[in-house]
């Protein structure tokens, strides 16, 4: 079986916890100027509970595409995804995305205040239906305040108009927004791209704090490596190059 090829060295770590997400022989091609370009070529991946994984690779190689594919935000050409051993088709796409939460790189704020943006997930039907499994209760304002402070957003009021935020502030607020929904696996695309050192450290510390035994995080980011290594309990490094995913030794 090739599906656990990547976990050869990690078997002990993975076995200690549950495997949250498994991607099996995932291939993905996209139209480019010169025809169909292979972005992911039979990629196999297992993410275990408690893991923080850093995804590396040359820019333009499709790291973001992999995150989008894992969140079922892009169609696969081949392969399958499993959550806790069950095939992805057992969940609707919206429910799957509450489990595997993608924080996109273009940190988009909706019109309204910072509080409106943080509570945006609770305006959606899926969080008001107990059977969806996404019924995380709506956080109160003091919780929102604490989360903002934890990411050095002291100067941002809950009543601030979201259109007035800087790129770095919006980036952190969109991370908080997703963290509040308590997904099982966080998929972060360049979370520290617009942040200075201190803010980046706080973001990585918050993610490490979030990643308990039954949760995981997969992070794309050039500068994040040191910080992942420093704060993570389980730091795995994966490398995506020319469609192939390989595990890097530490």
């Amino acid at each position, binding site marked *: 079986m090739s599906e656990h090829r990547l976990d050869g060295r990690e078997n002990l770590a993975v076995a200690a916890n549950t495997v949250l997400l498994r991607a099996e022989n995932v291939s993905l091609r996209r*139209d480019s100027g010169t025809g169909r370009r292979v972005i992911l070529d039979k990629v196999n991946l297992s993410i275990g509970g408690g893991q923080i994984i850093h995804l590396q690779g040359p820019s333009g190689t499709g790291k973001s595409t992999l995150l989008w594919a894992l*969140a*079922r*935000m*892009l*169609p696969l050409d081949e392969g399958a995804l499993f959550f806790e051993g069950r095939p992805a088709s057992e969940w*609707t*796409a*919206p*429910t799957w*995305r*509450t489990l595997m*939460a*993608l*924080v*996109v790189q*273009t940190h*988009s704020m*909706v019109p309204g205040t910072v509080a409106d943006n943080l509570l*945006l*997930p609770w*305006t*959606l*039907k*899926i*969080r008001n239906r107990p059977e969806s499994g*996404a019924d995380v209760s709506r956080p109160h304002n003091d919780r929102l305040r604490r989360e903002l402070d934890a990411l050095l957003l002291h100067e941002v009021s809950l009543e601030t108009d979201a259109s007035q935020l800087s790129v770095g502030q919006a980036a952190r607020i*969109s991370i908080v*927004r*997703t963290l509040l*929904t308590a997904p099982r696996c966080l998929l972060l695309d360049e979370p520290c791209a617009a942040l200075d050192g201190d803010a980046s450290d706080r973001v990585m510390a918050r993610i490490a704090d979030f990643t308990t035994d039954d949760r995981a995080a997969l992070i794309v980011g050039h500068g994040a490596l040191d910080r992942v290594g420093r704060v993570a309990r389980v730091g795995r490094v994966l490398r995506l190059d020319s469609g192939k995913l390989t595990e890097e030794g530490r």
Partner: protein
Amino acid sequence: MTGAVEIGLTQLILATGFIVVAAGLSLALSLGYCRSLVIATVRTYLQLWALGFVLRWVFAIDSAWLVLAILTVMLIMAVFTIQGRVTSRPRGIFPALFNAVFISGVTVTFAVTALIVKVEPWYAPRYVIPIGGMVIGNSMTGLALALERVFGDMAKRRNEINTLLSLGATTFEAARPSIRTALRAGLIPTINSMSAVGIVFIPGMMTGQILAGADPRTAASYQIVVMLMISAATTLGSVIAVLTSYGRAFDRQSRFTLDERS
């Protein structure tokens, strides 16, 4: 209709004289629109004369099938006109548009002729064709605006839509702000003309009735009915068109695919 002053050949020639003056001005000042002005004038003559002949023939034949056939042709022309105006659209919205135009056009036209004007027989061409034409023609603009806007606005909200989807939103929840914007955009021209009517301008139909000798109060009542049914048809048509076509911007797995397909 006794008060109508007959327009004969002399009157038409006199009216055309003004166009000759305008064309002469264009030539003298090298404005360059002489040719298009002449062509437009010829088209006006031909198209309206043809319409006059056709309507006279249709009124004389007085057949329900013929009236329905003419309404169908008008509806199909409207669908193609709207489709031509909506530039940024994904593939496959034709059925949605077709349903929207047919349901709103037919429902509102016959609601007016059967329930308000109470024409006898139900297909009376003298009423059904002009009223149907006004309903379809005037609601077309609003429908095109609403459709254009829903896809244009979603394209602009790309990041926001993907953010919402990644938080577990359904396609409707992700598209909702654009749907609202689009329906508002489709209705604004109608609301504007409802507000300005009678103060800023006298609408063509009322003018026509007055010139034909009708009591201005009767003409006003007719015009009120027409304005209301145009806004009803625009609302109904836009709602159907937008609600049945916004989903074309997504695939079956609730992924936003607008750019890739349009």
